């Protein structure tokens, strides 16, 4: 089951928070392909938010290809596929890098430290994903 948390009062809209968390969950391997997502109504009632917000988040997730809808059954985590053109993907990566780097630099970290932190994190993610995959097999 998906464990989502939302925070009100932040400058990230609620639907964006859902999108981000689902995306992260899928990317990190916490939600393998085929995991069912709760219905819009159920998630709205679980999070106590407007169903339209959930619907909008799901629509974004479907558009991005993270999630697919199966008629009459609801939403499921989809096989990863390219939704964006290469150019767009690069732009988005660039934007993510920029905000990450500006934050890291302002905290006083410099090149080597940042690089090693990123690599450590990546390694951990891969190992987690690997165990999940093994289990599924």
């Amino acid at each position, binding site marked *: 089951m998906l464990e989502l948390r939302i925070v*009100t*009062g932040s400058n990230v809209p609620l639907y964006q928070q859902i999108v981000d968390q689902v995306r992260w969950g899928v990317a990190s391997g916490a939600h393998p392909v085929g995991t069912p997502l709760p219905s819009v109504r159920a998630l709205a009632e679980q999070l106590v938010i*407007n*169903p339209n917000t959930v619907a909008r988040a799901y629509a974004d997730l479907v558009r991005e290809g993270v999630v697919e809808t199966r008629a009459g059954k609801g939403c499921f985590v989809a096989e990863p596929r390219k939704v964006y053109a290469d150019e767009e993907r690069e732009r988005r990566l660039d934007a993510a890098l920029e905000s990450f780097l500006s934050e890291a630099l302002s905290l006083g970290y410099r090149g080597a430290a940042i690089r090693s932190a990123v690599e450590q994190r990546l390694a951990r993610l891969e190992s987690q994903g690997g165990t999940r995959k093994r289990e599924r097999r």
Partner: protein
Amino acid sequence: MSQTNAPEAIRTDGLTRYFGSEAVVKDLTLAVPRGSVFGLLGRNGSGKTTTIRLLLGLLAPTRGSAVVLGSPCTNLSPETRARIGYLAEGHPVFGWMRVAAFGRFQAGFYPTWNEDVFQGVLRFFQIDARRRGRDLSRGERAGLCLAATLAPDPELLVLDDPAIGLDPVARRGLLEALLYVTRREGRTVLFSSHVLADVERVADRVAVLDRGVLRACCTVDAFRERVRRVVLRFSGAPPTLPEIPGLLSRWITDGELRLTIANYDAAVQRILEGLPLERMTAEPLGLEEAFLDYVGDRGERTFFLQGRRAEA
């Protein structure tokens, strides 16, 4: 009855109410779409309660008109009133009445009263039906009011500041109840609130009233997307700003000018880029901050902190 199938649950046209020579609600024109959860925002005294009373026909408009569920608000028939659930501000209950008696009293007026819903909400708020109204806590009173408002299964739910005086748990219960209402197709909720977190959670659309004037009426996302904070960094002292359309507030700190701008667009961006800037970043705001800057005092804000620093 064809009128009742209009796409809007509420539509007002130039609705105005004066108390003496003071306009409390001024030329209000808005529409509440059927099936939406509509948040009415504004500071104290901005005319939210008056607007709600006007809509429900509890006050006669000085001018203008409003149509609620297809009927003019000045002439709501009992049948139309039966389709509207109204939760008055402050959760009024009759202190001497026991909870069960209160339910029976209210049930007598509504042909569509659903006792299961009433009991369900009472259970949700853990209210003992044998207690008297005056012995209930604020949250329990809110629960009782809510139960009585929801039990007739209203088509339109009008809540006047339902979260007032409630603790977080009771507030959460209230929101769940609101969402419960919208589960049925075509049920509309109009509520006024000060609690932006609640609005962010449940509202589709918001209207912002400022001293009786409607300043904004749009979806929640549009509202927060269109109020932007722009941080301008200057190398030297900030220059005098040119006229910026939609400027809500500015905040000067060392070498930095933070502007909150409504309807930020390319034209505004060009104006700002014309300034001798070192750096400029534009970012969306949280709903609460957007609202604060939106209805707060317009113009320049400098903290006394800065003055102290200058003296030091």
